[in-house]
Structures are given as C-alpha cells and as structure tokens.
C-alpha cells in the first residue's frame, strides 16, 4: 500500500493549548500517522483471518472455542474500558491532548475492533451449531435471540455512528488546518457510542454466561 500522506514536520503550532499547567508538548500539534490504517497490523489481521477460516473449515471445537472466548473477551473488555474509563477521561482533556491521543489511538482501533468482531461472531455461530445451542427450544431460546438482538444493535451503532466518527477524525487530523470543534464533536460522539456499546456488552456478558451454564 502506498502511503496516504506526505511526511509532515514533527509538530506544528496550534493555538490555545492549555496554558501554564499544560503538559510538555501541549502547545504543538501532534504529527498524524503516515497511513490511516496501521500497515504493520495488517499481517497480524491476515494471520487471524486465515486461522479463523481454517478453524471453521475444520470445525475444530477447541479452535472455535478459543476464537470465540478470546475474541469476545477482548471485544467486551475493550468496549467497556474505552466507553467507561477512557471516554470520560478523554472528555476532560484539553483539545490538543484529545487530538494527540486520537491520532495514536484511533488508527489501531480501526484494525483491532473489526478483527475482534469478525473473530467472535464467525466462531460463535459455528460453535453454537457445533454444540447444539442453536437447536434449543423456548424459553431458553429467548436468551439466544436476545444475544442476536444485542449484537445487531451494537453493529448498527458501531458501523453507523462510531466508525464513521473514528474515520472522520483521522482524516480531519491530516488537514493543514484541522477543525478543532469538529474533532471535539466527533470524538464526543465516539466516546458516547463506545459507552453505549460498552453498557450493551454487560448485557452480552449476562447472556453468554447464562447460555454457557444451561
């Protein structure tokens, strides 16, 4: 892949960076990453996807369980941590600090989260088929349907609101004169939606632990 931007200087001045108590470097604009997608992560994603396809094709119970538990645990944990811990902290930072954090954090999320979601859902579906969870009757089946609905709502929020905000911030940071207000607005949307999906992940934890102990 070609790089998406030309090289920039290490930092460019930015107005009103926080005053006397501001941390070092708060008065400078962070250099955006060279590419929107962190290229170094792509081989890792490729390995995960190939391993997942192999596990599904082979219907290997242990591998499917591994992918579902590891993927789901990380997805849930990251969503909860970002939404309930990072989000509120981010909202109280100065705009330059938020921008600097976003420039480093969001490209990684762009690779990590879709990979974890794909890993969890694809292996989860196969695992459910393999162990017969899909064939349970009512009222147990309601738990299954509830898990589908929770995942569906989270997907709409993530793809419809969270990911667009994430990408728009990354592109805004590449401009010669980024719009601080727009970045602030989009990052608040990112933090709010991450918080909502984080709370919904608690529902996922309840449902999954219930299903696992039928």
């Amino acid at each position, binding site marked *: 892949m070609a790089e998406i931007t030309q090289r920039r200087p290490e930092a460019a001045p930015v107005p009103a960076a926080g005053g006397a*108590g501001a941390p070092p470097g708060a008065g400078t604009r962070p250099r955006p990453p060279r*590419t*929107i997608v962190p290229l170094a992560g792509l081989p890792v994603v490729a390995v995960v996807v190939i391993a997942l396809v192999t596990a599904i094709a082979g219907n290997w119970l242990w591998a499917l369980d591994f992918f579902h538990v590891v993927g789901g645990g990380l997805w849930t944990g990251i969503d909860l941590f970002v939404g309930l811990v990072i*989000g509120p902290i981010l909202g109280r930072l100065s705009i330059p600090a938020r921008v600097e954090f976003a420039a480093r954090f969001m490209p990684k999320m762009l690779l990590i989260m879709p990979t974890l979601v794909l890993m969890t859902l694809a292996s989860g579906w196969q695992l459910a088929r393999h162990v017969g969870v899909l064939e349970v009757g009512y009222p147990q089946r309601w738990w299954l349907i509830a898990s589908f609905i929770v995942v569906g709502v989270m997907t709409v929020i993530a793809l419809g609101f969270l990911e*667009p905000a994430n*990408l*728009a911030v990354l592109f*805004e940071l590449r401009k010669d004169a980024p719009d*601080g207000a727009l970045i602030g607005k989009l990052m608040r949307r990112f933090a709010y939606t991450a918080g909502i999906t984080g709370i919904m992940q608690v529902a996922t934890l309840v449902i999954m632990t219930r299903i696992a102990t039928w």
Partner: protein
Amino acid sequence: MVSSAAPAAGGQPAGPAAAEASLAGAGPAQRKLPPVTGLAVAALSLVIAGGIFLAAHLPRSTPLGPPAAALVLAVVALLTAAALLARVRDFAWHTFFVVAGWTLAAYLVIAGMLEFVFVLDHTPGQLLVLLTLMLLVFAIDVPLLLGFSVARYAPAGTGGAGPGGPQPDSPA
C-alpha cells in the same frame, strides 16, 4: 459522561471548551447535504434485523417473507441514498472513492467469510440467496456510509486534506 465543558486539570486558564472554540478557525463543512447517513443506517438496520430474524429461526424452517421484505426496503433505502448522493455537485468525490473503495475491499472479505460459513453449513437454496443478497447490501452500504462520513467534511473537489493530505491512488 463526556463533557467539553468539564474543568481542565492543572488549573489551566483555558478549559477544553475554550480551546475547542479557539481551534474552530476553519469550521466544519456546513454544506447542506442529502440524508445519506440516515438512509444508509436505515438500510444497515433493515438487513441486520432480517439477519436476526433468520438466525432466530435457524436451523428450523424459516419464514422468508419478513426478511425478504426487510431486504427490499434496505435496497430501496440504499439506492435512494446513492441516487441522492450522485446528484450532489459540490462534493469531495476523490476522498469519497478512496475511503469507500478501501472499505469495500475490507467488507468484501468480511462478507465473503460469512458467505463461506453459510455455504459450509449447507444453507438451503432460497435462504442462501436471501442471505447472500443481505451480505451484498451490507458490503455496499458500509463503504457508502464511511465514504460519505469522511468526504462530507473534506473540501469539495479535492482530496480532502490539503497539500499534505491524501494523494491520488492512496489507500484509506
């Protein structure tokens, strides 16, 4: 949970809200654009709702009417969004196609993976066709949504990020 008006740490004279206001020099694009995001999210919601309906019935026999209706509505919403967007003259089309193109590549991989699972599971004919069409809508809708979300804030008729921004033939 997240408030730009929250007091800054360290006794800073300028809070985040003030810094935000002072940084707002260029300002976001205030162009009036068609409701592409709303329509694309509606299409996404409909295919996901159809998928949930099917998943809730599998592996037993599944009534195909409701998910087929959801699919038709999703296609209508997606085509309307695409048609409305195509009529916009003042738009960062290069940025749109760069983002949408690379997103499409990624989502074709995801959709292909799910299709592989359906085929592997011997999903019956009509159901497989329905699921495949839903995946197709999904794989086209998300790139449209992401491409629009980025390009709407980019200067019209440019790569969207100024001289140091995305260059022709660059990936997202």
